[in-house]
């Protein structure tokens, strides 16, 4: 019951403090708050980097020369190229900054697609049940059984033949990640729908005579999506890794279409032996940091959503004054707040 209440309780608060992450931030304390803030800051840095990439990055992602002539190859960090250049002659700093744009675009495409498909299928499958449910569950299990990276590679080859343009590459990468994640959303929403199906308020609308579609979308869907933000953030970090792996294996986006960390890492592979550290460290660190940031947000949201894991400020020893009224008003049932349900103390 507590989770139900926690989600709906701040409804009267201003709209900005009801947004998913802001609401949790306000409720958190101590270490959990530290984790959440660290995660949010890291994510914000990357987000800003992606949005303002054209301003921040000194060169384009595919740029090999400027007015002063061609860039040197494998040049160590200098004033011209603060993080050095790669074996192909690209500026590492610019590639890392532009790479944030690609990574975030792919994550957004992948998450939106998998949420839309996964939630719809899960809802229909869980609420309607029957043979459709069985078939969908078997398919979802079959998809689970595949190694996810292999599946992503196959899908990416089918869609784009391996390499492609910016938009095509992003969509291809997004869809190949989607195929891996749809079963997760499907399962979670299906389980919720099955649970909600037997809740009294769903039965009550059945008794009233509501149509199946109305029950599904008005009553079940809105209550089934509660845990999605958690999976969503955790999947986002997995999507970044999958994208990087695809790029590393050469199934990502070409260097002239967009900057991609995984591809850069692949090209930096031979540099490590010759002591050229800057081509690999920076894109690698970018991947690690972004994944860390998103995971921190996801994990703290997960902890905060569960009242048993959520830490609270310790209760103070009570002074003589009591806040609860001592008026024995029996006939009038108490509104939750003072004693029965402190969660809803906004009455």
């Amino acid at each position, binding site marked *: 019951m507590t989770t139900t209440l926690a*989600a709906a*309780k701040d409804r009267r608060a201003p709209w900005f403090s009801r947004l998913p992450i802001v609401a949790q931030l306000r409720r958190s304390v101590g270490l959990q708050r530290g984790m959440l803030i660290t995660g949010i800051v890291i994510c914000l840095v990357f987000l800003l980097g992606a949005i303002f990439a054209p301003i921040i990055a000194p060169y384009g992602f595919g740029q090999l020369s400027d007015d002063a002539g061609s860039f040197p190859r494998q040049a160590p960090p200098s004033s011209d190229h603060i993080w050095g250049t790669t074996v192909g002659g690209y500026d590492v700093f610019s590639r890392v900054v532009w790479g944030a744009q690609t990574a975030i675009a792919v994550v957004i495409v992948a998450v939106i697609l998998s949420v839309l498909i996964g939630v719809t299928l899960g809802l229909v499958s869980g609420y309607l049940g029957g043979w459709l449910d069985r078939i969908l569950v078997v398919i979802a299990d079959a998809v689970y059984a595949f190694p996810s990276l292999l599946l992503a590679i196959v899908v990416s080859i089918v869609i784009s033949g391996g390499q492609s343009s910016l938009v095509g590459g992003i969509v291809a990468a997004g869809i190949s990640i989607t195929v891996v994640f749809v079963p997760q959303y499907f399962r979670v929403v299906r389980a919720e729908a099955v649970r909600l199906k037997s*809740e009294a*308020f769903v039965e009550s609308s059945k008794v009233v*005579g509501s149509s199946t579609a109305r029950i599904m979308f008005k009553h079940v869907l809105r209550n089934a999506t509660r845990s999605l933000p958690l999976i969503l953030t955790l999947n986002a970090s997995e999507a970044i890794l999958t994208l990087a792996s695809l790029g590393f294996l050469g199934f990502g986006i070409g260097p002239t279409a967009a900057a991609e960390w995984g591809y850069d890492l692949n090209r930096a592979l031979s540099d490590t032996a010759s002591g050229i550290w800057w081509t690999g460290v920076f894109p690698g660190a970018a991947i690690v940091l972004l994944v860390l940031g998103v995971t921190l947000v996801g994990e703290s949201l997960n902890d905060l959503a569960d009242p048993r894991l959520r830490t609270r400020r310790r209760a103070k020893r009570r002074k003589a004054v*009591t806040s609860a009224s001592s008026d024995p008003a029996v*006939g009038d*049932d108490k509104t939750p707040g003072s004693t029965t349900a*402190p969660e809803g103390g906004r009455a």
Partner: protein
Amino acid sequence: MSDIVRDDRHTAVDIKNLEVTFATDGGDVNAVQGVSLTVRSGEVLAIVGESGSGKTVTAKTILGLLPETAVASGAVLLTGEDVLTVGPKRVRELRGTDVAMVFQEPSTALNPVFTVGWQIAEGIRAHGKVSKKEARKRAIDILSRVGIPDPETRVDYYPHQFSGGQKQRVVIAMALVLNPSVIVADEPTTALDVTVQAEILDLLRRCRDEFGAAIVLITHNMGVVADLADRVAVMYLGKVVEEADAKTLFADPQDDYTKRLLGSVPRLEARGHQAAPSADAEIVVNARGLEIEYPGRLGRAGFRAVKGVDFTIAKGQVLGLVGESGSGKTTIGRAIAGLTRVTGGSLEVLGVEMNGVHERDFKPKRAEIGFVFQDPASSFNPLLTIAEAVAEPLIVHGRAGDARAARARVDELMEAVQLPKAFGDRYPHELSGGQRQRASLARSLALDPALLIADEPTSALDVSVQARVLELFAELQSDLGFAALFISHDLAVVNLLADRIGVLFHGDLVESGPNDQVLGAPEHDYTKRLLASLPVPDPSEQAARREALRALTRQA
């Protein structure tokens, strides 16, 4: 095992000025505020109060079972040691040997993957070196003493092989096995049927008399208090408002709260003759040989929840269905509302035959049926305001375009169920259980139904709140004149509302007739037993009833 003879005046538990504060999302909550209580050996102290009164928290402090978010101050002296300060290791030693607990829900208090004998032995072996054989012997011994037949065999049974009442006996056996000086029983009979409740109360009485244990009984049921308690402490909002011995409290309550609490307990007394509906009154529900079977797993026979039941509900009439869990009363209510398929016989609801009905044919009739669910916590969509939820039936049946257009009618309904109009803008969790149940009533009445089905509408509510909801129900029924099926396990509640009563037992309607006849002159043995098992809130009358029940069981 009761070789230690205790002095009657020996104090078992002494709670001094206990304060407990919980840290919650909504700030600190002072659940217990300065409670002082003492319990002596061989005495039953009942702590009575409604939900949120702090009774359970107080009792759990005796075992040191507070969650991490709680801070307690004051002192809880258990045979001279302060549980709050001795530290976790000593508290663990005290549990079992000095203080034990009986939980509310016996099916969750036992671990389903171990035999009951193993679970009892585990408690014995946790305190001192006892061989497996010896522990098993003691487990068998204690099982026989709590009245489990054939304990030598049944010690190796798993919890699911026992009935609910027997499971509670096993839980009590686990509590008794180390011969503790105090037993804390938290609502020990709330999850049980009324006939089983009487047996468990008898057993607890024997715990006190034969084992000499002090019992702290936590309950909201005044009948149980009257049956078992020697002394009673009434708690309200974290404070003890009145403490007296049971006879005095029931005969002459001092505090206003106690008076009102006692006043709102429904009693089993004749309501005078009910005006019988005229013979030619329109029949709203007509069941003939109604059978409902739940499909079994592959290769197994289904479960027949209702086995050929006949009844009718005429226009404007209230039929009360009474029965214990598993009697099929809820199934019948759900079948009338079209939530459960009828598998045999005939059930006509508002002229539609429900056996083999298609949803398409029944849908227009749904506007004429209201349904009030048992659990007020889950019967509202948590994301819709009360006004939106009450407007749902109006929107679905095209009486209003959206929630805003329906608001005038919603306000009217809110007024009818005596809720302030402003409550319409609240979310379900911002209302108390009783308020929610009234809103639920408003929703079911939105379309002026010809038939209202109420499935245990008050069993989740506190007794004082229950009294008001029942009153409201009766008022609305006489004003609006709808027919109603009122389902309850509580005879006293049904008595307040129903014109006719049907008693269900294992899917059979064993007795039915006008209110006075069924309750005043029951014919079937089961009805008699059901009536006699119901504890009344009066210690001396209850003692007499207890004897009557004992005589009845001996006959059977």
